[in-house]
């Protein structure tokens, strides 16, 4: 069996895949609003969809801040250490 075929199939239907993922995201938020939450350890645990926002914002910040740091301070040519 060529294992590349199912992967190729998914790639050929990227648009459908995208919509499925959007639906799953919406579903996750609805799910979060519905489930009962006992003894939360953190204020965010009580807010519906808090962790969605948390995940999204953290991801954006992480990329922006680290790429910024890399381009200003950290990044060097590959032969920097000789």
């Amino acid at each position, binding site marked *: 069996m060529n294992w*590349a075929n199912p*992967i190729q199939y998914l790639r050929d239907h990227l648009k459908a895949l995208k919509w499925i993922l959007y639906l799953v995201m919406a579903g996750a*938020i609805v799910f979060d609003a519905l489930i009962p939450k006992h003894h939360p350890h953190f204020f965010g*645990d009580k807010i519906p969809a808090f962790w969605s926002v*948390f995940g999204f914002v953290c*991801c954006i910040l*992480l*990329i922006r801040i680290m790429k910024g740091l890399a381009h200003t301070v950290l990044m060097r040519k590959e032969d920097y250490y000789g």
Partner: protein
Amino acid sequence: MDKFVHPALFFILGAFLIPVFKGRLKQIFLLLMPAAAFYTVLNLGHGIYGEIHYLGFNIILGRVDRLSLVFAHVFTLMAFLGVLYGLHVKEDAQHIASFFYVGGSLGVVFAGDYLTVFIFWEMMAVASTFLIWFRREPASIRAGFRYLLMHIFGGLLLLGGIFLHYKNTGSLAFELIPKSGAGFPEYLIMAGFALNAAVFPLHAWLPDAYPEATVTGAVFMCAFTTKTAVYVLARAFPGFDILAVMGTAMTIYGVCYATIENDMRRILSYHIISQVGYMVAGVGIGTQLAVNGACAHAYAHILYKALLFMGAGSVLMMTGTSKLSELGGLYKYMPLSLIFYVVGGISISGFPLFSGFVSKSMVVAGAGEAHHPVLMVLMLLASVGTFLSVGLKLPYFAWFGKDSGLQPKEPPKNMLWAMGITSFLCFLIGVYPKVLYDLLPYREEAMKFHPYALPHLSETVQILLFTGLGFFLLLKRLTPEPKINLDFDWFYRKAVEGFMWFDHRFIHAFDYGWGELYRSLALKALMAFARFFAWFDRWGIDGVVDNVAYGTQGFGNQVRKIQTGNIQHYLAAALLVFFVIVGVFWFLR
């Protein structure tokens, strides 16, 4: 079980037998040793074995309890998978190095005293250095030396701590150190352990060395050094707040660097720091739940991180590069490697149904239950970065992204099998966490923990989904760049460079100048001095000696002429002398 067979023996003695076997037989032998060790670990009963009194020290080679067993369990299992992954390697020395490496970490895990810990600790450091050197690239040779030097430094911290600890307490027993009883010696020991756990800022050796190791060596290295360090920290220092803070800092630090790295194996190395951070934090929080979490995460981590290194190593082996900027579009040619890698990627990210989900959550919950909400949230932030780099960025740019034009084959069968089995284990632990929870040090506490509780499930799924959304929105910004990033190794690499400059500029210059001065002035003076003595020798000493000889010879010649052989001459001479003496006598009177 009455008889105790130390599982490390299979590796340390087995290593000597590796060159004896050839071909298929060698492969069977290589697989048999870890399998036998794993079987031995399964059948070990709790207790203290191998106690030796030597020079007044109490050496304990085999302390078996729940904490040592869970680590020995996963170490021997991992050794089997690692050997299977490297089965195609023809060079005996590589197998021997990995056997000694595994033997060393098992020795540490069962050690009951600091002396034994230290000896096996150093065995690991030396054996693993060879796993780097055997890649035989110039960069690997240099990285291996840096790695060895750092570990020797860590070993010295540990040894210094052990000596001072022994002086204070009179005992070498490797036991839990009470928080109130910890002073400078204990913190030195902790620093020695922390260096191996890659605790910030003693971490830079890890992302420096692991990406330069051999393909199969890196699979071993990612499993043993840091997790042995987690074991010794969990044994001696549970509940030390500093570890909770440092561990959480590590989780963030690792993911930050992984976001901007280009080399696949360096990204994964930074994620070792991040993941070991969870374990160190779990140990530092120190509650039963958190220590359980640290052990569970160590167990799960060894498997999925090895799987990730196997996947990245396959790409490196088949394409010759591990730089994301040179890769892309491999999914058509290496789909199985991709699938196995992704299993590792979603395991480390903590997807439900995979191993990271049931282990990482235990540490995070441990932080929550112990009322450390800040640590808990920071750990969740780190899991965002984990999915971003390991779960999305790395596979996207290696297997999809732009087409690099590379058309590699899948790696050899043994590597695929190793990846397949490890993938299965990651999945098994995820869907049936009881197999893992049964092994944990505090079993009752572990049984009370339910990772698939709805709030946790909802939290995890949301974080992962929306991290994915963020990734695809900023995909262009993440394009890998063929650059390196400065890290703490800058300090010692530049310090050495500075020393070399100082040496060249001053020490060497002084040495050279001194040499010149000596040659131009001192040497000339010496030569003149020598010439004077040569002259004096010839004309002074030789002159005296020779003239004495010539004089004696001449005198002898004259004396010889007097001796004529005629008695009348002798009588005349005697009479002459007689009259001269009498004359002188008479004259003087």
